[in-house]
């Protein structure tokens, strides 16, 4: 990748370009690159593997390779315990939160990046301050609000709660992304007779695709994984989410590790897959300057 940034004035004039390839394969690379990477990969993957072994291994076996594989544990949790329903609830909450957070973050992020308005600094400060609010400590007043609003045992209620807690950070990130799209493009479209709204949809929005993927999947993963709100605000089993179902499984399946592992696989697969796909956008997007706001 070539850089066009100006070189610091103090550096000496570079000599003629050095040969592109290194002279020798540097043997120290094995110690400072491959060895730690392999060790860290083991630390990351052994727990996942352990879960897969338990999930696919018939009860009573102890071999480290789950062969022959069995789906009995998945049948137990999906149909017997109700993880099928929990999965559906988590999916509804995840997608719902994704949509609402992304739309509101786009609106607010655009406002912060493209307008100067009274109270802007206060608003930004308030957004940052929300990061210090512990969800766990808000359970008491939130429970009172949800009860009086009739939002207990409701998936809509959980989408609202997840949205409220995820929106501030999503909005800050999104405003960074919008700022990275040159405003001149939009202005040119407006000179050509577009309204601001049309200019946004025609010019800016297509450029924000990676940002939307990153912010949206953040919101999805956050809502999918949220435990405390679901635990506190949904007491009926048909409204349980996967983390709540899992937490009960932790207590009840103290002896049935196969079922616990199968439930874990059900909860892990969607988010881990989503994340594997979007982590690239995330790194690119953050690198493009969103971290610095």
């Amino acid at each position, binding site marked *: 990748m070539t*850089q066009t940034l100006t070189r*610091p004035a103090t550096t000496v004039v*570079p000599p003629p370009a050095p040969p592109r390839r290194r002279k020798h394969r540097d043997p120290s690379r094995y110690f400072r*690159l491959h060895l*730690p*990477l392999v060790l*860290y990969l083991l630390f*990351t*993957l*052994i*727990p996942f593997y*352990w879960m897969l072994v*338990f999930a696919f291994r018939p009860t009573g076996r*102890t071999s480290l390779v789950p062969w022959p594989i069995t789906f009995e544990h998945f049948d137990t949790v999906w149909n017997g315990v109700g993880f099928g329903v929990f999965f559906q609830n988590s999916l509804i909450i995840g997608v719902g939160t994704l949509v609402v957070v992304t739309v*509101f973050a786009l*609106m*607010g992020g655009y*406002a912060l990046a*493209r*307008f*100067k308005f009274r109270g802007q600094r206060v*608003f930004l400060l308030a957004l940052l301050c*929300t*990061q210090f609010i*512990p*969800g*766990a*400590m808000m*359970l*008491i*007043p939130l429970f009172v*609000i949800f009860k009086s609003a009739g939002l207990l045992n409701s998936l809509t209620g959980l989408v*609202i*709660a997840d949205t*409220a807690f995820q*929106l*501030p950070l999503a909005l800050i990130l999104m405003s960074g992304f919008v700022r990275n799209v040159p405003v001149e493009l939009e202005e040119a479209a407006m000179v050509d007779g577009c309204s*601001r709204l049309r200019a946004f949809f025609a010019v800016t929005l297509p450029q924000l695709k990676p940002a939307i993927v990153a912010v949206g999947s953040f919101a999805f993963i956050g809502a*999918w*994984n*949220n435990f*405390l709100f679901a635990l506190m605000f949904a007491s009926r089993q048909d409204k349980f989410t996967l*983390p709540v179902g*899992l*937490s009960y*499984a*932790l207590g009840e399946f103290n002896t049935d*590790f196969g079922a*616990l*592992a199968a439930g874990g696989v059900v*909860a*892990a697969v969607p*988010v*881990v897959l989503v*994340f*594997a796909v979007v982590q690239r956008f*995330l790194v690119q997007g953050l*690198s*493009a300057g969103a*971290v610095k706001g």
Partner: protein
Amino acid sequence: MRTRTWAPYALIAPTLVLMAVFLVYPIASVGWFSLRQHTVTQPWKNGFIGFENFRRMLFEDQLFWQSLAFSAKWVVVEVGLQLVLGLVLALIVNETFVGRAIARALVFSPWAVSGVLTTGIWILLYNPSTGIFQQLAQWGIGDPGTSVLGDPATVFPATVITELWRGVPFFAILLLADLQSIPNDLYEAASVDGAGRWRKFVSITLPHLRDAIVLSTLLRAVWEFNNVDLIYTLTGGGPANQTTTLPLYVARKAVDSHDFGYGSALTMAGFVILLFFSILYLRLSKFGSRE
């Protein structure tokens, strides 16, 4: 674009409403509750009691100080280790090697796993009958021991490692993103000047990463302070309250003994402590002062 219109206000209106109802109002009501005796199971005793809750907290409640001390230890150890490992990991996957894309996706993946699921996975790994230590003992490595989560000597490291598994990728991702924004020219110029690998790391990489490190450690410290999911499900605060953090103590006051008044006072203490240390940290680190 400097315009005097209603447009920006309309655009932030949904966010403002949500924040007002679900963040600002609850904080205010926590403040109000903290000055009251308010127990759901004994409503006849409810009423305004001034600073009595705070007096009880500061002077009579041994568990408050104990949980606060554990919270501090937890935050320092977790954030410190996550930062170091995350930085090393970011530097590694920033190098060019075959299979880098897959390696990145794999080492970052625990980030997407919830606290409860992390507990589930590690309980399988730690369990005293078919866990990893028993497996290793079968191969003649180490001592099978007892339950690592039940033994006061091992419960802290076991919990720390579990949270590390999920927490390191956060730092690795953020720092990797920042590493990629360092202009290559700087390293090339340094090479020309004869700087070694370590020298380049100290004089180019670290100064460039400073703001990102300050911001990510601060955010992470707040999150780890407030972390309840994992500890609640992994140890439940035990054995013998050894791993009870302040938020976990609050959650137990609220859920088990329905003591909303005292729980709110504990919450206010948590807020004030977080705010104080955050401001102190930003001041000391001179965040954002580099131009």
